[in-house]
């Protein structure tokens, strides 16, 4: 199934700049990145489960606790790399974004309908790639364990990525469980770059996969929390993934 982290992380984890400096550990004490990633893939259900192709409908909530903002979150993923994310917040309206397999797009009340380009599109395209579920080496020019770190009291191995597009990111995998517990990134947008730290927790079993249900994302001094309540597999129709009319207009006009 194509659930992996793609559906849960889209909108939550953009890609990344290198993390805060990890603790100094001599290189010979660090496990190879391949080993850390293999253990992670096993921890979430194994390579076959992670790479299964099946659509998924993820439903949950989105909140910005300090602002008193709470809304509904829906993430749809298709079998061919499509994504559709919707967050609805009272007083703010609906914020939607997605990827058709070729085109990345976004519609929200503050920036209007737009097609993504540049680094923003690179990030969406690369995250939508099935192979990301298992951190396939073909997606990166470099994957290196750079040290150990700690999030919420849990020690983890920090793995740094340089993507084929040139972007950089890092992820931290629990020493104890092998699960991904945090990532750091830089999200690109027309408004500029935002450094993001995302912490994943509360893993639960969905189908064949063991996935985080809470993602706390810190950016620009504010925290956003995404909580997953349910995941259904194989219930997403192609029409569910179709971009809004305004986006189709832009696509059909050539952007």
């Amino acid at each position: 199934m194509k659930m992996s982290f793609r559906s849960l992380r889209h909108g939550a984890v953009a890609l990344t700049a290198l993390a805060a400096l990890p603790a100094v550990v001599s290189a010979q004490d660090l496990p190879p990145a391949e080993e850390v990633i293999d253990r992670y893939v096993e921890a979430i259900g194994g390579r076959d489960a992670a790479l299964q192709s099946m659509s998924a409908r993820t439903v949950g909530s989105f909140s910005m606790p300090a602002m008193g903002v709470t809304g509904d979150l829906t993430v749809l993923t298709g079998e061919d790399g499509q994504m559709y994310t919707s967050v609805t917040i009272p007083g703010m309206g609906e914020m939607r974004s997605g990827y058709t397999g070729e085109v990345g797009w976004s519609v929200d009340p503050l920036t209007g309908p737009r097609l993504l380009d540049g680094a923003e599109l690179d990030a969406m395209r690369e995250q939508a790639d099935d192979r990301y579920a298992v951190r396939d080496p073909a997606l990166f020019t470099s994957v290196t364990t750079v040290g150990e770190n700690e999030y919420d009291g849990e020690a983890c191995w920090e793995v740094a990525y340089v993507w084929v597009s040139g972007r950089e990111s890092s992820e931290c995998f629990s020493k104890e469980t092998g699960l991904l517990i945090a990532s750091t990134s830089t999200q690109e947008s027309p408004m500029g770059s935002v450094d993001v730290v995302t912490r994943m927790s509360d893993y639960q079993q969905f189908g064949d996969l063991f996935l985080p249900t809470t993602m706390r994302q810190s950016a620009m001094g504010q925290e956003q929390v995404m909580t997953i309540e349910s995941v259904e597999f194989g219930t997403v129709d192609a029409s569910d993934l179709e971009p809004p009319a305004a986006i189709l207009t832009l696509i059909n006009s050539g952007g």
Partner: protein
Amino acid sequence: MLAATTLLAGCGGAVSAPADAPTPSGTSSETSRPISTELALQTFDSAWSRINASYYDPDFRGIDWPGIRDELRPRAAEVSTREELRTVLRDMLSRLGESHFAILPEESVRAISIDDDGVEDLGDAGPGDVGLDLRWVDGRLMVFKVREGPAGDAGVSAGWTVAAVGEQSTGRWEEIVADADSERARITAETQTVQGAISLMTGPVGSEVPMTLVDGEGDTVSVSLPRQPVRGQMVRFGQLPAMASWLEWERIPAPGQPGACVGVIEFNIWMVPLVAPFNQAVDALDDCMGIVIDLRGNPGGVGGMVMSTAGSFFAERADLGTLKSRAGELNFVAMPRGVDTEGALRDAFDGRLAVLIDEMSMSTSEIFAAGLKSTGRARLFGSTTPGYALPAATLPLPSGDVLYHVISNLTDPEGRRIEGSGVAPDVEVGVRREALLSGVDEALDAAIVWAAGGGGR
């Protein structure tokens, strides 16, 4: 989406006055609920710590922030009521000397019934007002506009001076304005006293506001105006108080241009549910020679809204201002709106664009005006704004109140700070009593003439 939600950090108009504003007394409905010393100190420490961690300048512009804690925390330990604690907290906030710091009482931020659009039906529990806009003209507080409502029904007209609102004589406010020792101080005093008058005119629906006015003939007129529900929908966003929001637009004949039109769009606050009506208005006015956006009296709102709103008037992205926090920088960017409200491709409106501002145009209104002025896309008419423009966020406090606090500095596209300096119009058009009494809005008229092709580009 992340950046967009980050930019939700509001520029809340309704709470934008500095804590040391010379506001009138008697506006609080808060009763003296008791508070324990432990809870008072928890609340004080929470507010101080949040600002300590998030204020955009880690050096606090040279202000001794730890020293302020050391001075005021003992006072917080001695309070016995929530209102007394608020006084201490507001004293703390005032030491920073900037807008967008406030303590929002628990009862003002508690949603009652809110729908998915953020619209709250408060029914009779909602606020009421009397339908008057006030401004200072030649040192006197004056009726600037009479909107549909009790004041108009009672025969009150623009150009009448205000002698008293309730038991509050305007004489003391006149002294404050007269004593201002600089142009900036005068604008600040005028802005804050108008806010004070507005707060006195606002209250429970059905209650009455005694007012003493002087008409155009110099005769004193005493009226008692029943407050009616405020105009527009009550919209709530996050922990900010519910705020009335409305937008209206009209197409008027372009002066000296037979068959041509100028559009005028006015809205009272920057709340996201107004994005769609704004876009619809622009689309409907697309054939006009020019558009005038009237932001006089608009106190701000959600800062990020400037991006989509300005986007109607730009073919390419354009920088409207920069937010700088400890965590980094983001830009307000005009996002060209390539699709109209019917879903068809649209070109940016390329006619003339005028923006009306005055001393009651604050926060997001100032960001919008400054951005369009800096880019050369709009010509500003009216008078200088007060300079209350800092992005802010909220934090629920242990007491139940909400801390509203600055999180970023903000500069216009030319690197100028709007906070404390305001936005000056390209064309200064002051308010004259004679014009008001004769029903003429001179700033609006000047903007319309220019938007219709008059004057220089």
